[in-house]
C-alpha cells in the first residue's frame, strides 16, 4: 500500500487516488508553429524513468484535486508531493 501525502488533505492511502501519468510532459504552446515531433513527444513518447519520477495523481475519493508526486518507480518511496500548479525545482 502506498501512502500519499495530499498537499490539501494530508496522508492518505493509495486507494483514494487515481494515477494520471508523467507530470513532466508539457503541452505545446497554443498559437505557435508546432512540429509533428513535438506533438509526438507530448502525446506518445515517454521517458518512463527508473528511479525518481514526477507524476500526476488525482485525489479522486478525497478533495478531487490533481497533485504532483515525486516517487521512485523501483522502490515506490515517495519523496515529495506538490499542488498541481506548484513549480517543482
Amino acid at each position: 500500500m502506498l501512502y500519499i501525502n495530499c498537499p490539501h488533505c494530508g496522508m492518505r492511502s493509495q486507494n483514494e487516488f487515481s494515477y494520471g501519468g508523467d507530470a513532466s510532459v508539457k503541452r505545446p504552446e497554443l498559437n505557435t508553429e508546432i512540429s509533428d515531433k513535438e506533438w509526438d513527444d507530448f502525446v506518445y513518447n515517454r521517458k518512463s524513468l527508473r528511479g525518481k519520477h514526477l507524476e500526476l495523481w488525482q485525489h479522486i475519493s478525497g478533495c478531487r484535486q490533481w497533485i504532483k508526486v515525486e516517487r521512485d518507480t523501483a522502490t515506490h518511496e515517495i519523496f515529495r508531493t506538490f499542488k498541481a500548479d506548484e513549480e517543482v525545482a
Partner: protein
Amino acid sequence: MQKYSIFNLVKNAFSNHENWDLAWKDPTPKEEYDVVIIGGGGHGLATAYYLAKEHNITKVAIIEKGWIGGGNVGRNTTIIRSNYMHDENGLFSEFGMDLWRKMSQDLNYNVMFSPRGIINLAHSDAQMNAYARRGNSMRLNGIDAVLLNREQVKEIIPMADFSENVRFPIFGGLMQPSAGTARHDAVAWGYARQADSMGVDIIQNCEVIGFDVSAGKINGIRTSRGNIKAKKVGLCVAGSTNILAEKLNMTLPIETHLLQACVSEPIKPVLDNVVTFGAGHFYVSQSDKGEMVMGGDLDGYNSYAQRGNLPTLQHVLTEGIAMMPFLSKLKMLRTWGGIMDMSMDGSPIIDKTHIEGLYLNCGWCYGGFKATPASGWTFAHTIAQDRVHELNAGYSLNRFSTGHLIDEKGLGTKTWIS
C-alpha cells in the same frame, strides 16, 4: 545435441541420468558477432532460434542481464490466443498459433501446449453484440470463434455464478476453441537449447551498459563483461526497453508498468478452459498441477519493482469471486509481478530504428507470452533481411506519428488505465 526421446530416456536410465548433455553451454563472449540480441527472454531466445533456423545466421549472441527465462516468460499466466479483431493483431497471432501447434516437435522439447479454449464472458446485450462483431472479424481472418449463449456457457463452466440477481449476470461469451496454455519455462528452455545447438552463444549475467554508435550506425555494445562488436543489434527487453532507449537517446511510446499474477493452492480438476471476466479485468485457468492461475489489472502506476501491491490484487480477485464464487474458499499459494512494456495503443512494436543495424521489439503489454514464436519469427526476419515482414508491417514505430494506431482495446494512450 542429444535428442530427447523415449530411447534416450531408457538409455540414460542405466547410468542414473547422470550423463545427459547440458541443455545449453555457458560461453564467454566472443569479440564479434553478426547479430547480438539483447534480452534472453522468450522473444529474444525465439529470435535467435529463427535467425539460425530460417536465415542461417548462427554467429549470434544473446546477452542477458540475469538468467534466461527469469523475466516475463517465467512470470506470465501462460495463455495463448489469437482472438483479436484488428487484422494486424489477428493475422500475426494466428500465424503464431500455427507455430505453437508445431512447437514441441519443432524444438524436440515438450512445451505442453494445451489448446483448451478461451471464453470471454459477456455481461450485457451490448457486449454480446461487440463479441459477435469481434468473432466475425476473427472468422474472416481464418481464426476460429464461437459465440455462446448463456446456456451454452453454463454447460462448459457450471461453477461460474449464473444466479439472476448478480451485478454482472452472464449473458453469454465468445470462445476461441483453439486457444489454450503452454508450459512457459519450457518455451524458454526449448528455444534456448535449440538455439545453442545451432551455434548461438547464450551469455547470462551480462548487463548492457552502453552502445557503440557512430555516423548513425551501430557497431557494437558495451557490457559488464567487455565490449562486443556487432553488425546488427536487436532489443528484446520488454519492461527494460526505456532504460536501454535512454542510453541510445531515444524516447519511445512505451511506459513500464507492473502486472501481477497469482496461483491458488492446487485443487482437483474443476476448470477445463481459460475464462475471462467481461465486466472488469480478470482471467483464470487451472494448471496441470491443479492450481488456479489468475491475473488481471496492472498496478496502475509506472513501476520497475517486479513485485506487486495488495490493493490491485484485492481488486482483481474481487472480480474473480464475482465470476466464480468458489474461488473465495481457496488459499493463495503464490503471487508475483512482472514489468510490462505498455505501448501507447496497446499493440507491440517490431521494427527497424533510425539507427542503422539497430532493431526494436517491444510494447507487448499484457500479451507477450502468446506472441513468443511469432515475435521471434518476424523479428528474425526483420533483422536478417533488414526489412519488416508483412506480418509485422503494422507494428511499426512510426505509426504513432502517422496516425496508423492499432488500438485494439480503444483505450487511447493511457493503456495502463484499468
